[in-house]
Structure formats: structure tokens, C-alpha cells
């Protein structure tokens, strides 16, 4: 069953190496982004290794169950709610960013708020599903779309306009000191393993096998996501683009394809990935928040509504309002800050889980 682990890992990788991470890193390409990536590969893989070994020991338990045995409610509840909100934020950021992208590239005449509403509605509905259903769907969606992703990667790498000299320029900047923001951004690509903090519940006796894949996949996707835009757009010009990867994909065409411009193929695939990512993050977020709430249902005008629907609805409404208020610039600033907070929280969460599993072993 360890393939489900890799689906979530790969999904997170695909999502995050397209949106903000390359933009933040490419802005710092002369100021330590390359060394940050190298460092992030080490740190990210290490965190993933520590986390999965700890999880293998804590058989079939999710984060709420682990914490329940070691902490009183007063400490446990704020922690879980905090993590829940962090998960929700991860999904919401992608949702808002992607609604901007689709508005710009696919539906320029449409009111962006209506698109946002569409995404929020579907995210709300999808996040209330059982985790097992979401994982089943994740497997199908990822496996169906993976060949197209690989095709796009291959197509961009084999593009005749791809200029390796632009990349050679960067060799002069490898040994710059890594910066904190770039490190925080670069490690985000590896964060997919963290979803198993909750989904570990579903798999009894699951051992994550083939863990050498983590650094391998991470490194290759990370390098493609940073170097392909540089090679195609030019090392200087690459930072001028708002949506680096969409512009990169738009440089390539399929000569004999039904869809001629690769950017559309790219966008279709990423609508699917984004919705899946939103469903997964909101699902985990809502379940974490719900683990501190004892009631299952609330009565709203004589109708029994499950708490899950209420929490996910809350996520959706907050995202909708924030999405209406945000613009590209403010979103990028927020994401840069949020990524640093996330990095610290992630290290904390991994440390917590490792400590819990260590205590279990020696108790």
C-alpha cells in the first residue's frame, strides 16, 4: 500500500513546483537559490525519512490518536486546530492562485469571483468525503494524468529553443549562502509525506517501501521545475514572468497534436491536480479540527448537518472572502511569509512525531 504514500508525495511535488516555489526561487537565482535547493533536497529527504520511520512504528494511528495518549486536551486541541488551519491554508493558497490563473488564461471574460466560487464549491463538496474515497480518486486521477505530465516535461526539455548556456551561467552562483526564504520555499516540494500524519490511520501494517525514491523523485522534479523555465525563458528574463511555469509551457507546441499549444494540456491537467490537492488538504484539515470536537452533527434549521460539512464550509467561505480581497502581489507576499511559518511548523511536527514514536518504543 505504500504506493498511496507516493501518490500524495508526487501530487504535492507537482503542485508546489509549479506555483509559488519556482517564482520565489527564481527571484533569488543569483542570491543562493541553487544552494538552497541543494540543501532543501538533503533536509526534505531527511525529514521525510525520519517521519516515515516514525510513522511505520506508530502503526495505523493518525496524529489525533497519537497526541491523545501523551497530551491533555488543553495542549492537544490548540495544536491540532493550528495544524488543521495550516493544512487548510495550503489548499486555499493553491485554490486562490489557480483561480487567478484560469481567469487569466482560460476565461478572461469571466468574473474571477465566480470562478473562485466554482472552485470553493467543488472543494467544499470534495473535502467532506471519506479519506478512502479521496485516496481512491487520487490514485485514478494521478495515474491517468501522469503520462501527460511526463510528456509535457519531455517536450519542454527536448524543445529546440532550450538553451543550456543559460543554465551554465548559474554555475557561478552555486556557492552563495542559502537564504531562509528560498530554503523555506525549496523544502515545500518535499512536504507531501506529511499528509500521512492523518492518512496513516487507514493503513494498518503499512511500511513505506522504496524510500530511496523520495530524494530521487524530489531532486528530478525540483530541477525540472527550476531549470526548464531558465533554459526556455532565459536566465535574466525568467524573473519577469508572473506565472513562470504557464509561460514556460506556452513556449512549446505539439506539431501534430489535436491540442496544438501545450499550455492548454498543462492547464487541464493542473485543474485536476489542484482540485485534488484542495480536496486532500481540506479533508485533512477538517479532520484534524474535528478531532477536538466531540459533536458529530449540528442542527441548522431542523436539519442535521454533519460537523465535517460545517468545518469544510467554513474553510470554503473564508477562502472565498480572502480570494476576493487578494491580488497576485499580496498573495505572493503572503505565501512567502507563510512558507517560512510552514517550514518551522513542519520541522516541529516531524520532531513531535519522532519523539512520540521514540517514547512509544521506550515506554
Amino acid at each position: 500500500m505504500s504506493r498511496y504514500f507516493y501518490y500524495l508525495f508526487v501530487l504535492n511535488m507537482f503542485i508546489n513546483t509549479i506555483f509559488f516555489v519556482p517564482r520565489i526561487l527564481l527571484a533569488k537565482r543569483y542570491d543562493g537559490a541553487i544552494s538552497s535547493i541543494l540543501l532543501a533536497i538533503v533536509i526534505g529527504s531527511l525529514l521525510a525519512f525520519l517521519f516515515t520511520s516514525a510513522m511505520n512504528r506508530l502503526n495505523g494511528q493518525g496524529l489525533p490518536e497519537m497526541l491523545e495518549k501523551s497530551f491533555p486536551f488543553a495542549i492537544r486541541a490548540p495544536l491540532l486546530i493550528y495544524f488543521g488551519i495550516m493544512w487548510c491554508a495550503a489548499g486555499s493558497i493553491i485554490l486562490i492562485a489557480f483561480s487567478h490563473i484560469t481567469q487569466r488564461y482560460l476565461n478572461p471574460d469571466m468574473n474571477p469571483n465566480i470562478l473562485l466560487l466554482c472552485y470553493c464549491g467543488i472543494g467544499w463538496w470534495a473535502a467532506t468525503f471519506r479519506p478512502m474515497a479521496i485516496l481512491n480518486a487520487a490514485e485514478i486521477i494521478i495515474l491517468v494524468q501522469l503520462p501527460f505530465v511526463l510528456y509535457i516535461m519531455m517536450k519542454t526539455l527536448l524543445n529546440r529553443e532550450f538553451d543550456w548556456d543559460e543554465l551554465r551561467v548559474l554555475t557561478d552562483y552555486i556557492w552563495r549562502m542559502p537564504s531562509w526564504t528560498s530554503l523555506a520555499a525549496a523544502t515545500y516540494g518535499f512536504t507531501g509525506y506529511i499528509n500521512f500524519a492523518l492518512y496513516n490511520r487507514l493503513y494498518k501494517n503499512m511500511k513505506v517501501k522504496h524510500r530511496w525514491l523520495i530524494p530521487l523523485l524530489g531532486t528530478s522534479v525540483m530541477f525540472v521545475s527550476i531549470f526548464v523555465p531558465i533554459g526556455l525563458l532565459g536566465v535574466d528574463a525568467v524573473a519577469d514572468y508572473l506565472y513562470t511555469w504557464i509561460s514556460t509551457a506556452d513556449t512549446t507546441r505539439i506539431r501534430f497534436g489535436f491540442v496544438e499549444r501545450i499550455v492548454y494540456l498543462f492547464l487541464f491537467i493542473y485543474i485536476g491536480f489542484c482540485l485534488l490537492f484542495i480536496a486532500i488538504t481540506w479533508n485533512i484539515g477538517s479532520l484534524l479540527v474535528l478531532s477536538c470536537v466531540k459533536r458529530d452533527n449540528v442542527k441548522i434549521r431542523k436539519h442535521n448537518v454533519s460537523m465535517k460539512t460545517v468545518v469544510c464550509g467554513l474553510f470554503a467561505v473564508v477562502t472565498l472572502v480572502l480570494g476576493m480581497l487578494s491580488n497576485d502581489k499580496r498573495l505572493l507576499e503572503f505565501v512567502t511569509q507563510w512558507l517560512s511559518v510552514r517550514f518551522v511548523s513542519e520541522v516541529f511536527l516531524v520532531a513531535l512525531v519522532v519523539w512520540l514514536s521514540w517514547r512509544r518504543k521506550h515506554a
Partner: protein
Amino acid sequence: MPLSTIELLKKSADFKHEALDNDKLQTDLFYFASLCDMKVIRKEIAHPFTLCSSVQEFEQVLNSAMSCSPFDEQSDLASTLLSGHVIVRIESKLYKLEAVKPGNIKPSEAVMETTIQGPQLAFSEDAETNLMIIRKKYPFASLLTEKYSLGKVSQTKCYMVYDNDKVDPNVLQDLKCKLEKIEADVVQATGQIESLITKSKIRWIPTMIITERPDRVVFNLAQGKVVLVLDGTPFTLVTPSVFYDFMSAMDDVYQPFVVTRALVVLRYIALLVTITLPALYISIVSYNPEIVRVQFALSLAGSRAAVPYPSFIEVLFMLFLIEALVEASLRLPRYIGSTATTVGGLILGQAAQQAGLVSSVMIIVTSVIAISNFLIPINAMSFAIRIAKYPLIILASCFGFVGLVAGLFAITLYVSRLESSGLRYFRFYIGEPAVSGYKEGDKY
């Protein structure tokens, strides 16, 4: 003997009360002439009766007759009579003899699921005959059957058939509970059973296979599935089944590997086409014509030049036409059916295009949708998929491509939530025993 019941039943013309007298003994027979086989009554009761000289002797005859037993005063007289029994009264004692007339026992030719080079006969409408067909094809002692009567009024006979060695006991237990809870008055078809034992009222995608093919049933039994055989219909219900089962035809087993796989891939492509094509048309025409090549975009626009309406009206118009045609040719008597198709398909399609109501590309799109839909082997699934395109059309009309992809995502999620008797319905079964793996257990 409750005379009131007899008095009530005597009002119907087919209820018979016959008094036999052979000078030494008198006996009364009560039965429904419409339900009972006169041959059995003559052979088991009337002929021996002429030779009997005492009550004891006749009771001996009754006790030694097949499927004849003393009538238990507690049980319901009317329902015993109505299930095809004869009640024999000798002095004050009552006996019941099963003498049910066989129904339509002739297996018909398979019409819903045809194979090219497989068994050609389907089940019959008689449950016992169907059991006989199954037993003949599956001569194994572990094949067990359990009998239920479903429906408060109809009391339809239903057999649950399974291979005791292979079946999942949880599935069996679950199904038993559900069958016992059925409270409907009349149960007449297997599709109805599925509705009755599904908890949620709003049901879209079938999660149990309805099939008329004995070979499919036997294959499924060998995989440890449970089959419900209902009296009065040639269709049986197979559970648990997963999505892939609905996409497999029995020919897949009888054809070479490569041919089979190619056909399965064809079916999945058709599935995708029939669901997405109308929505794709709307998105391309009304939202993003730049997605396709410029030449094609131009010829698309050219073919739509005469059409004054937005694309979604065009699509809904043509889809209404084709759905109405499909429905009409289903319900009409077979001889008129082909006329309807010709009139609708050829004349209306061409005329609609010339009248400037729809574009010529839309005509192609419509026929591709309809044809692709018929590639799905199991009829119930084919009907369910027919519905799937409409939510996508609505979403695509509102949001363009975003709506289309989001709708596909939602359908995937919806289907992967479903379960069939505890088995997850829609996912990849990698490294697990294949659910539709007909070659399973075969070493070569």
C-alpha cells in the same frame, strides 16, 4: 380448518373444491386450478385413492408421496394454497401436497448481452430452471442456495446462490440482513431488489451487475460472488461487483488476450468520449476556440455560421432529439422501432442542419456520443452513463473548460466513494487478485 378462508377463496373462479368418493372413503381436495398441475394431483392423490379402503391406508399413501406432509394448523392456509399446494382433507386431518405448475421454463436466447462465440442461451423466467442451469455449469458440492420470498404481497421466490468455500462471509451476512428487511409489496425484477437493498434513495451508478447470461453468473460464482436468482425474470443480480465488471463483456474471456485488451481500451475511450464530448464542444465553441488548431477552429465557426444560438442550446436540442430517439426505439414495438430510427436519425438530423438549427459538426458529435454510449456492455451501466454528460454540459456552459475538468473530477470522486457490498467500487486493483480476472487460477 378455517372455513372463512375457504369461503373467501371460493369466490374466485379458479379455486377448486373437489370431493372424492370411492364408496369406502371420502376426501376433499382444495386447490387453485391455475396454480396446480393436474397431472401431479391425479398421480399422487386421485389414483391411489381409488385403491384405498381405509383411512389409515390413505394416510400412508399421503405420507409416502413426494413433497406431501401434514398441514400445520398454525400456518397460513391461504398462502399455502396460493403457493401452489393442494390441501387434502381426510376426516379431520389436513395434508398439503406441493403440485405447482411449472412456469415458462424454456431458456430464451440472450438478447441484452450477446456474445459472438460464447454460449447463446440466457436464463429462463423460472427460478428452478435457472438453478438447474447454474448447477449444470457449476457441479460442485460447495454451491449452496438459500430461499427467500420477497415482497409482502407478491411473495416472489428468490434464491441466493454462492460458493460456500469462496464467498466472503461478511458480504453474505450483510446481504441476508438486507434481503430480510425488504418491505415492499411487490418485487418483480432484480433491478428493483438492488434499489430496495440500497440505503440511499438517490442512486445513480449501479453497483450490482444485472445479467441474463449463465456463463457470467458461473464465472462470478467461481470468484466468490453472491448471485440472486429471482423467479419470473431471466435477469440475475451479482454482488459485489466493481466498475470494471460493468465494462467487461463475456467475449473478453473467449477472445485472445491482445484482442480483448484492445477492445477494453476501446470501451474506456468510448466511455470518456460519450461523457465529455458534448461539454467539450461547448467549451471549444463558446469559451476557448484557440485550443484547437486555427484551421479547425475556423471550419467549426464556418459550420456554425447559420446557427444563431449559443452552443449549449444547440447541444441540448440535438441531445434531446437523440435521447428521445433512443427512448422511442426502446419502447416502441420492434417493427415500428426501426422506422422511428430511420425517420429520426437520417431525416431530422440532415434537415436540422439545413434549417440552420444545428451545425454539421454537432450532428457528428451527437452520433458519436450515442454510438459510444452503446459500447458499454452492461445495460444498466450504459443507462447510468447516459445521464453523466448532463451535469458536465451544465458546468461547461457556466465555466467552460474549468467546469468540464471540475465536473470530471467530481464524477471520479463520486464514483470512488461508492461501495458494493463492502468492496471498494472504483479504484485500481494493483497487485491484488483481479476482480474481473477471468484467467485467474489458470497457470498457462
